[in-house]
């Protein structure tokens, strides 16, 4: 997938992004309605990073994401229904309601987890890339992470080792300007927290528009090609913005007035619409895609609501590979 992707491909990506956006809005509403417990970290605004990257990857490539990872699970093939069911503690949840919002995983689609300890999954992605290299499969592994992860040790250990071993791994930072509630710039000695660090590990890096699905697909495609050719890792820093606060009902009052509005003008869905118009796709066709997305989400919400709650017996399965939890005789 490159910058000259055709209109129908782009329309498909637009619809995928619209489904993710609608699912995130539904997750927000269900949380406020008391049907989602715990916490959520919504990725509305980040859709182009997940959908663009996924479009550029092979189905058997590996993806590791963060606790803000609903978009990556869905972009790799988890259904909105099984994701919402997971958030709603339903038996049909993608992780049998044992993971929750922060741990959406779809291993059968190569989506190997959402990790809630910041930065922990970067070495794992490097390890999956090492495994691919040893098995000679030409698969690549991708770690998506937030700007906040660039200040934790695992980020630096992973970049160094992945570079030294020339592993087929992509490190993709979703820089949304805030580590939780604090502006990343105020706690980081680099203008571009991921990309500026790459040179220290002899890695190529690129700062890209994370709200343009075509730009993301293009950059990931090039980086994946390098990785498959044996030329090692790439760091991509995708500039984006989260439309909601950090988590739950965070109103994000720490954001300066007008900032959200400025970013909404570059909403990934609007950017894609402008590109579609430029490719001559009729408004009606785009509207039809948006409506299909709305129906997909509405059906998913209805199905998740109707599903059975988690089976209490599941509390005692899946600790060990034999399915059980026995720890003593």
């Amino acid at each position, binding site marked *: 997938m490159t910058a000259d992707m055709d209109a129908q491909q782009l329309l498909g990506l637009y619809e995928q992004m619209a489904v993710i956006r609608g699912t995130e809005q539904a997750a927000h509403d269900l949380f406020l309605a008391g049907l989602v417990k715990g916490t959520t970290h919504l990725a509305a605004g980040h859709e182009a990073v997940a959908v663009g990257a996924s479009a550029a990857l092979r189905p058997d490539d590996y993806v590791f994401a963060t606790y803000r990872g609903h978009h990556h699970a869905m972009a790799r093939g988890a259904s909105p229904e099984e994701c919402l069911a997971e958030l709603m503690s339903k038996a049909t949840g993608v992780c049998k309601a044992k993971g929750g919002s922060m741990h959406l995983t779809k291993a059968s689609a190569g989506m190997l987890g959402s990790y809630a300890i910041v930065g922990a999954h970067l070495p794992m992605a*490097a390890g999956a890339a090492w495994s691919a290299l040893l098995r000679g499969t030409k698969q690549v592994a991708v770690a998506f992470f937030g700007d906040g992860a660039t200040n934790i040790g*695992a980020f630096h250990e992973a970049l160094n*080792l992945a570079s030294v071993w020339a592993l087929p791994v992509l490190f993709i930072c979703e820089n949304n300007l805030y580590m939780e509630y604090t502006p990343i710039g105020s706690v980081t000695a680099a203008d571009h927290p991921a990309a500026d660090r790459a040179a220290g590990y002899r890695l190529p890096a690129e700062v890209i528009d994370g709200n343009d699905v075509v730009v993301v697909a293009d950059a990931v495609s090039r980086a994946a090609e390098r990785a498959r050719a044996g030329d090692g890792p790439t760091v991509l820093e995708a500039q984006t913005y989260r439309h909601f606060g950090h988590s739950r009902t965070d109103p994000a009052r720490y954001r300066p007035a007008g900032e959200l509005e400025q970013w909404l003008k570059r909403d990934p869905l609007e950017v894609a619409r402008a590109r579609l118009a430029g490719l001559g796709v009729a408004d009606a066709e785009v509207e039809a895609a948006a409506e299909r997305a709305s129906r997909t989400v509405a059906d998913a919400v209805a199905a998740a609501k109707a599903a059975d709650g988690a089976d209490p017996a*599941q509390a005692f399965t899946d600790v060990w*590979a034999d399915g059980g939890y026995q720890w003593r*005789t």
Partner: protein
Amino acid sequence: MADLITYRDAVADGLAREMRRDPSVVCLGEDIGAAGGVFKTTVGLLAEFGAGRVRDTPISEQAIVGMAMGAAMTGMRPVAEIMFSDFLACCWDYLANEIPKMRYMTGGQVTVPLVIRTANGGGLGFGAQHSQAVENWALAVPGLKIAAPSNPADVIGLLAAAVRSDDPVVFFEHKGLFASRGETAPAGHVVPLGQAAVARSGTDVTVVALAATVPIALSAAAELATAGVEAEVIDLRCLVPLDMATVLASVRKTSRLLIVEENPYQGGWGGTVASIAADEGFELLDAPVRRVAAACVPLPFADALEDEVIPTVAKVTAALRALLDY
């Protein structure tokens, strides 16, 4: 007489046996390649299996264990070495939050078949940051299996079981035992995880031990035997799965239980053994359950000080005498 082998050579032999058997077994860690390991426990592996399967890493414990996890999730059986078990603290996130939880929190979607080998325990005068017995750290985390062999044949047999396990295993090699010798293991030797061994049969008192406390317990038992007392020494071999059936069967016979552990009394694994014995073996006991454990202080450097803190033959002998006199 069977061939004798050192505990340290048994580690390298055990790894080599598994690497020959299964090409998905790979090793990574600091100084494990050309240097053969800081304790010489990986000597010969680089020469036999090459740099692709025996990889030196930087001093990056999070990357070592995190990469092992990623590789384990995608079809390999990595064996990661953390040079000193004290350094597990540098990558504890992976042992506490990532490796043991991934299978469970994904509803069984992911399997993490890896081994983390590490040199554990005191007795060599390495001071407070290189001498700790930290097997109780791992015991605090549901989802990890824990092996800690006391002799060369068990090193080979338990390592085989650990590598073949589809569950993550933390494998504690005891620094104080590396130079010790014992019979080697026959080809194909596997010691299943969670099966304790009766290291010495006896009828008067049960001593439960692990790794380096097994030879200490055996020495104490030999001393008592001169006074006509027969102690039964049980080598737990593993903390998870914990073979309490073997312990309770022995207590049924002896009615007395002493636990000898090198980790601190405070939070040590003997507390778990004692609590199960008190709960399920209360009516079998004729005396209180006693523990000889490390004192609750950091490990001191000088031998004269370290001996004050960790279990010794003299302490175990004294504890046994007191228990028998109860």
